[in-house]
């Protein structure tokens, strides 16, 4: 198994574990995590050599970047908002935000839209971390931001490709962000 596939397994398992821990307490976060997990599952197949998984992996990764991650950030910033509490609202963000984003970035090559969405997510996470003043939340936010930087800069770090580091940083970031939060509050 390649490092990219192995780290995508880790990302998928992290999302699955967080989904299981949350149950139905935070529907918005669950929808966002499901989107990221789906992309990770296709990534495992793609990086294990299944050529047919390349397109779906790109599609769902893009969907994750332009809709799922911003939704996750929004739900953490505003846990009592409609997208955080109502599965239908969260699904609408993924369907319309995701489809629109995929077309803008993947088809029309307007990469600025993807960057804007990620920047918005980072700003929301930083604001949420500032409000909560929790070390684990700050650590998770920093790890996710680093993941974004690695994805944008594509640096060569040891023998692993940049995408493997992205998966690793995302897994660690999500775990730091969501695991303590769930165990502390039990719900949003």
């Amino acid at each position, binding site marked *: 198994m390649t490092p990219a596939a192995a780290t995508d397994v880790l990302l998928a398992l992290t999302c699955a574990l967080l989904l299981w821990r949350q149950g139905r307490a935070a529907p918005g976060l669950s929808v966002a995590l499901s989107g990221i997990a789906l992309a990770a599952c296709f990534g495992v197949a793609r990086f294990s050599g299944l050529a*047919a*998984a390349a*397109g*779906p992996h*790109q*599609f769902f990764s893009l969907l994750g970047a332009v809709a799922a991650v911003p939704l996750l950030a929004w739900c953490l910033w505003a846990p009592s*908002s*409609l997208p955080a509490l*109502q599965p*239908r*609202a969260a699904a*609408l963000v993924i*369907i*319309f935000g*995701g*489809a*629109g984003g*995929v*077309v803008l970035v*993947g*088809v029309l090559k307007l990469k600025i839209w993807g960057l804007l969405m990620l920047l918005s997510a980072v700003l929301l996470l930083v604001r949420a971390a500032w409000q909560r003043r929790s070390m684990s939340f700050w650590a998770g936010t920093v790890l996710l931001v680093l993941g974004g930087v690695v994805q944008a800069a594509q640096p060569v770090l040891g023998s692993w490709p940049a995408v493997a580091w992205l998966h690793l940083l995302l897994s660690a970031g999500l775990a730091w962000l969501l695991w303590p939060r769930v165990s502390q509050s039990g719900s949003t």
Partner: protein
Amino acid sequence: MQPSPIAYALPVFLLAIAVEAGVARWRGSRSYSLPDALTSLHFGYLSEVERTLARLLVIAVYAAVYRTFHAFELPTNAWWVWVGTVLAYDFCYYWVHRFGHEVNLIWASHQVHHSSEYFNLSTALRQTGTGSLLKWPFYLGLAVIGVPPTVFAGAAFIDLLYQVWVHTEQIGRLGWLDRVFVTPSNHRVHHGQNDYCIDRNYGGILILWDRLFGTYADERAAEPVVYGVRKPFHSYNPVWGNFVLYRELLVASRAQPTWRDALAVWFGPPQGWGAAVPHADFKDFQRFEKPIPRGVRRACLVQSALLTAASVYYVLMATRLPWSGRLLSGGVILLAASLIGLQLEGRMALHPRHWRLRAPDITPIPPEDTP
């Protein structure tokens, strides 16, 4: 791009409507009203006009997503690809349709189809003229799997065509078919505004999706279905019918204190976030019906026949027209449908003999049952 196949199927639909109206009259069933049926047809023509303008964009987006992200190169001539695609399309359709009822922005478009208080084959043609741009995101999964655009378009047409025959009161219950497929019985429930009918039976071909996702309701013999919507727009003008709910949403959202509340209006369910569908009593329910003088009725029938011919011709020729030609022709059809609607409502008359019969001083004349 090929012209819409609906244009070729329209003569068959019109014949089927005439036969159904004849059967209904023979059985003494009040399933038809001429103004309502004509309005349904006019809604259908506007819908086709919109498709000639927006369909190109929607199919282009689907094709672009297919080219960029498809997993498999599925053959277009294999039967299993077609069967699989129709099933997958029907699954997506279930969710489009469900969101179409549970999200105001899409309901504003889809309510047109439910606005008739009659239930007959003409209701099947009463389609929205604003829907194309709202539904495409739900079908992108098919492009990612690798369903070629031609097969996708074919499956969409099959799904649409199947749904025509289920809009009738002339076919009763069909036993086990009612529990597997969408049939007239379970689709009557879908068009009802009784408490037990609201947000039920969304399927296109298979009703199994509703049984799977908990939205199935069986038709109740003891509680006759009352067709229509809870907030009727009471008009025969298809242009007004297409935009009336958008206008209401705009007014409601502008009255909200924050932009987040305004968004919640557009993307919320018709009854409001977290609210249950309120109970409604239909003991004194009366269908929307305006008394129309026989002469006006005949005049509208003739104009509607001309509009039918013009719409079919336009849909067949649209692909050869430049955008300016499409917009102009579409605008003329829109205007004509609107003018016929105004005449049916008694708010306008073409012939001086009927000028005195304009709405305020119109003499009530018992409506006829059939066209």
